[in-house]
């Protein structure tokens, strides 16, 4: 059957695996967006810029301080998360009582400013960042050559995604969080510090973007526009999965990575639009998204 499609099973397997790898980035990024939207009702357009910052912070740690990939994997998200908290405290927190649109416009503006600043200081061509020694090289899987680093990306993203899902859906802290978004006044009355929780949630969502940025640094060009190209796709992923649905964002991320990967084989020219076509179809048939609850 595969032969009929003009593609042999090994090639197909290879492409499925590549799709899964790209899906890992979509999943981690859309998860951060879904957490922020689901719990804070902010459409965080600065997410792509913060992802880019994650990659740049990893580069700076290496080149200015001599800190390598592994510590950066922890440190860069913390630094980016702290930057996010600063944004939340000084700007975003003033917009919670207004319409979604204001948050969107603010974060969009912030994204442009952050990208502009990085472009000004580091140029547009990008900076080199090597794959860590331990993960260089790769495995021959028979149907394809899998670079070790890509394998690590899939594993790391699955751990982070499902860890986050577990924390929000299955733990007491997560229950507080969800309760606080339903009724902040009541939860506050029970002695929970709601503003602090919201601030940390935003910081966490942003840290996820920074984490994805560090993961991306060794394989994609570290340049100021790297997030701008990706953010639109990631938004489409969140919309398809259902705005605010944590599991929806994760599963849709992987799924769309795979679909996009397959499009690259059958009709490469269409691979840039396939996700948006799916988004349009989903919005027509199930406007709340694949995993969203009807409003």
């Amino acid at each position, binding site marked *: 059957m595969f032969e009929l499609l003009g593609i042999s099973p090994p*090639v197909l397997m*290879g*492409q499925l695996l*590549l*799709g899964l*790898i*790209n899906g890992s980035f979509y999943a981690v990024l859309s998860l951060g967006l879904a957490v922020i939207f689901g719990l804070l009702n902010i459409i965080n357009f600065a997410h792509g810029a913060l992802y880019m910052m994650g990659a740049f912070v990893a580069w700076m740690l290496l080149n200015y301080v001599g800190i390598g990939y592994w510590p950066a994997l922890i440190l860069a998200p913390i630094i980016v998360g702290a930057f996010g908290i600063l944004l939340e405290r000084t700007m975003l927190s003033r917009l919670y009582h207004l319409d979604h649109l204001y948050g969107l416009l603010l974060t969009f503006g912030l994204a442009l400013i952050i990208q*502009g600043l990085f*472009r000004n200081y580091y*140029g*547009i*061509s*990008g*900076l*080199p960042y*090597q*794959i860590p020694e331990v993960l260089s090289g*790769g495995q021959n899987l028979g149907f*394809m*050559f899998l*670079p070790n*680093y*890509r394998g690590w990306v899939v594993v790391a993203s699955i751990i982070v995604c499902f860890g986050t899902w577990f924390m929000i859906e299955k733990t007491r802290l997560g229950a507080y969080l969800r309760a606080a978004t339903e009724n902040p006044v009541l939860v506050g009355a029970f002695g929970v510090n709601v503003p602090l929780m919201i601030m940390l949630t935003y910081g966490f969502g942003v840290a996820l973007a920074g984490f994805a940025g560090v993961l991306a640094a060794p*394989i*994609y*060009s570290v*340049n100021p*526009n*790297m997030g701008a*190209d*990706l953010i639109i796709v990631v938004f489409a992923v969140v919309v398809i999965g259902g705005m605010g649905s944590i599991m929806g964002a994760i599963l849709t991320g992987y799924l769309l990575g795979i679909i996009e*990967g397959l499009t*690259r*084989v059958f009709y*490469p*020219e269409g*691979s*840039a639009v396939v996700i948006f076509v799916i988004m349009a179809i989903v919005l027509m048939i199930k406007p709340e998204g694949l995993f969203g609850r009807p409003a």
Partner: protein
Amino acid sequence: MRKFAISAAALAAMMGTPVLAQDINVKLGVLNDRSGVYADLSGEGSAVATRMAVEDFGAAEKGMNVEVISADHQNKPDVGSNIAREWYDVDGVNAIIDVPTSSVALAVADITAEKNGVLLDSGAGSTVLTREQCQPTTVHWTYDTAALANGTGGAVTNAGGEKWFFLTADYAFGHSLEENTMEVVKQNGGEVVGSVRHPFPSQDFSSFLLQAQGSGADVIGLANAGGDTVNAIKQASEFGITQAGQKLAALLMFVTDVHSLGAETAQGLNLTEAFYWDQNDTTREWSARFEEQMGSKPTMVHAGAYSATMAYLEAVEAVGSAEDGRAVVAKMKEMDIDDPLFGKTKVRGDGRVIHDMYLFEVKAPGESEGEWDLYNQVSTISGDDAFLPMLDECDFTKK
């Protein structure tokens, strides 16, 4: 530099037209990408190079009043056209310099002809500028897709890379580069076994690279530019494609791209450029001055902006005015230029500038002595071999 001045002075003497330089006002507009993908290889650097040319030409000492302004065309033809019109109509600009991104360059070339200005193009690659849409006011200085194809395509095929697979950016520039290179490959006895067109811009090339790997080609030709090329090369090394013996041919790559990749990943790549900072004492000295102002080494596009401006000012001085763009370009076509950066240079009747091109190989990290010490020169391709022959209907010196 001195040679340049002497030959120009001799030329002016030959013309027998004593010029009152004091009366000449010239306004130059550097129009390029200052914020997008081509901002590093053109951008502010081209404005800096243009100002250096004005200074080195000694415009002030000659009493010429030269002003340089600049703007961002954002790689959009409509934005570029609007700025060009405003510059010619309102600001009194005499010549527009650089203009990378072929679609914008073509739009500006038409407006320039209409307004009788001058387009000194350094950044754009399409051969259409001096062929299908040639104009008497266009000077295309630095490179074009045919020269790149002849350089890299020819060299790699002759070195035994006979079966080619193309990874092509899916827009006008990519198509044109792919087509030019395919022709050169076939002329040299090579064969094209397949191609894939990827969306522009793309982040992930692994899928396309695997298709290229499966095709059994000797060479994967990258008919794309900037970040796309950088990502494709990075990932080809990651997926063990280069290590497994398939060669990559980056058909358009600037020294800033190689710098961004790092010598570790880029080593062994063949590429064609019209200029490299470390070619001789003059280029080194000039590039050091450029680096003082920009913080990075110049690309061939920056060098082209400098040299084109020098030649232009020379012609303006000889003509005695910058007002008539056609007359200035006609004068440029008469001059024998010994350019400090490009060597013996001739502006052909169709506006295509003929000079030598060079095939380079990226050094291995061990050989490289500094972050910008990146190329070994492999061979020189003479201008007549590198560029396409002139179309008769585009020879404006005949009219």
